[in-house]
């Protein structure tokens, strides 16, 4: 049961996006996020949706998988949409819809304005595109380890400020490395406790939470033991932090990374232009 958990949902593949340098993907994703939050009008949002669709095609990950990735945020989407519909809008305009709901002696008048509806749609698109595109660039097509490498490389200048970038990256790598081991261990401990009559599936929430205590304690103890063993093993292999370390695989930018970067810059510039000039004169 626990084996099904995968962190970050990486789907190995061979698409252009898979092959991109993880650093380039991070930078491009950040640029895209800027574009998402700059978008103001219909043309921009159409461009965002279209580009997100193109990226899905490029990544060769099925649309269904990506839409499924949106499921956990459905509640947030719905909530922000409702808030936007009812609480925002241009009060100088005539309302689209109004009701009068008496609550005791007060009367609540929920009102919907046209601007509020548009705003709700825009915000929903923003959040959806944000989740889709960041997961396409980062979680779906980049393994957690390469992502860690990319973060280490990109933050390397911070070393000048004596921030231990290498150490943080190493910590992340090891944490990721131990996830399958610890999941396996949790399974083992749970089975051992079940064999002694522990019940994890029934009872109230409090009762079930309490049943997990005898799982967590041995898990923590063994995690510390493993951490110590690993530290000793690493030290025996001459590890002493990032000092004087070389790497077997060095990240390398290719032509496609530069192309992707330039395209994204152009896209961002386009969004800016359309925002301020709205050349197509379309407005809602």
């Amino acid at each position, binding site marked *: 049961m626990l084996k099904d958990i995968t962190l970050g949902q990486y789907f190995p593949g061979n698409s252009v996006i898979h092959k991109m340098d993880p650093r380039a993907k991070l930078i491009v994703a950040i640029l895209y996020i800027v574009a998402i939050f700059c978008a103001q009008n219909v043309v921009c949002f159409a461009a965002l949706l279209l580009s997100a669709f193109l990226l899905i095609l490029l990544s060769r990950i099925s649309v269904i998988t990506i839409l499924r990735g949106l499921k956990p945020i459905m509640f947030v989407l719905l909530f922000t949409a409702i808030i936007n519909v009812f609480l925002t809008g241009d009060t100088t305009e005539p309302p689209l819809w109004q009701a009068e709901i008496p609550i005791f002696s007060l009367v609540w008048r929920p009102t919907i304005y046209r601007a509020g509806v548009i705003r709700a749609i825009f915000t929903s698109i923003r959040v959806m595109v944000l989740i889709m595109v960041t997961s396409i660039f980062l979680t779906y097509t980049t393994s957690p380890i390469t992502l860690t490498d990319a973060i280490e490389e990109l933050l390397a200048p911070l070393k000048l400020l004596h921030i231990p970038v290498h150490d943080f990256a190493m910590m992340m790598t090891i944490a990721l490395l131990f996830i399958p081991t610890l999941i396996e261990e949790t399974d083992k401990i749970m089975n051992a406790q079940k064999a002694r009559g522990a019940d994890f599936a029934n009872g109230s929430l409090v009762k079930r939470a309490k049943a997990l205590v005898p799982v967590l304690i041995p898990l923590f103890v063994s995690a510390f033991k493993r951490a110590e063993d690993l530290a000793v093993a690493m030290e*025996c292999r001459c590890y002493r932090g990032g000092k004087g370390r070389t790497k077997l695989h*060095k990240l390398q930018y290719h032509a496609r990374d530069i192309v992707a970067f330039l395209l994204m810059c152009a896209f961002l510039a386009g969004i800016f232009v359309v925002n301020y000039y709205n050349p197509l004169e379309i407005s809602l």
Partner: protein
Amino acid sequence: MSEFVKTEHLSFSYEDEGDRQNPALEDVSIAVQDGEYVAILGHNGSGKSTFAKLLNMILSPDSGKICIAGREVTAPDFTEDDMFDVRREVGMVFQNPDNQLVATIVEEDVAFGPENLGLPRKELRERVDRALSMVGMIEYAQHAPHRLSGGQKQRIAIAGIIAMMPKCIIFDEATAMLDPLGRREVMSTMDMLNRDHHIAILNITHYMDEAAHADRIIVVNDGRVYMDGTPGEVFSRIDELHAIGLEAPQTTELFDFLRREGCPLPAGYTEDEACIDALVRLYEEA
């Protein structure tokens, strides 16, 4: 031949909660030559793991001297950088393969040690490929280690040590968590490293049949050196082994039993095949 690892009058004790000293090692003086294959044998709590931790510089002794690769690691002026230099000469393989792998791809794990040494990329590549083919795992270079069997993982761990090109490798109960097949894989890797590459092997174990592979066996009991000699010498003193709760290999035990019944059989260690031959001859003569 020169002494690669040497200890003189080494003593170490653990402190328990009541500040009482529990001696783990007392007056241990051992020398291991370059390219020697030594097994350190003892049951649990005999002090053999403590000995490994001392050689490893994880613990420092209460008294006595340790010299590794001609340098006294217990000297007061021994610095962290010196420790780095010594550790590249002495590799160590531990019991649990899961707790000594540091990367999610086999070849990157093997590269970890040499990367720490700061070698150029071209040499890293050569060393990783060489180490992986030496342990017969080259076709797994791109695999994820946690999907492999225990014996394979342990061979990856060994490759990670070989890639640093040490002159000596210490195996701290490296086969204790493996199934018989995995143990055989690791044992034949050890034999190969010693025979073909003249790497000194120090195998800390409680398996008799493993100890029989070595050139020399040091039996440790209650923190002291109890016996020191070739497998033949050690296993011929079967009563002394029994006295401290150890058993000789099965063939030796069998011959000992038959000898007591009056059969003319040799004492000491016998390979399985030789044992069968001797029994067949004995049967035909009778």
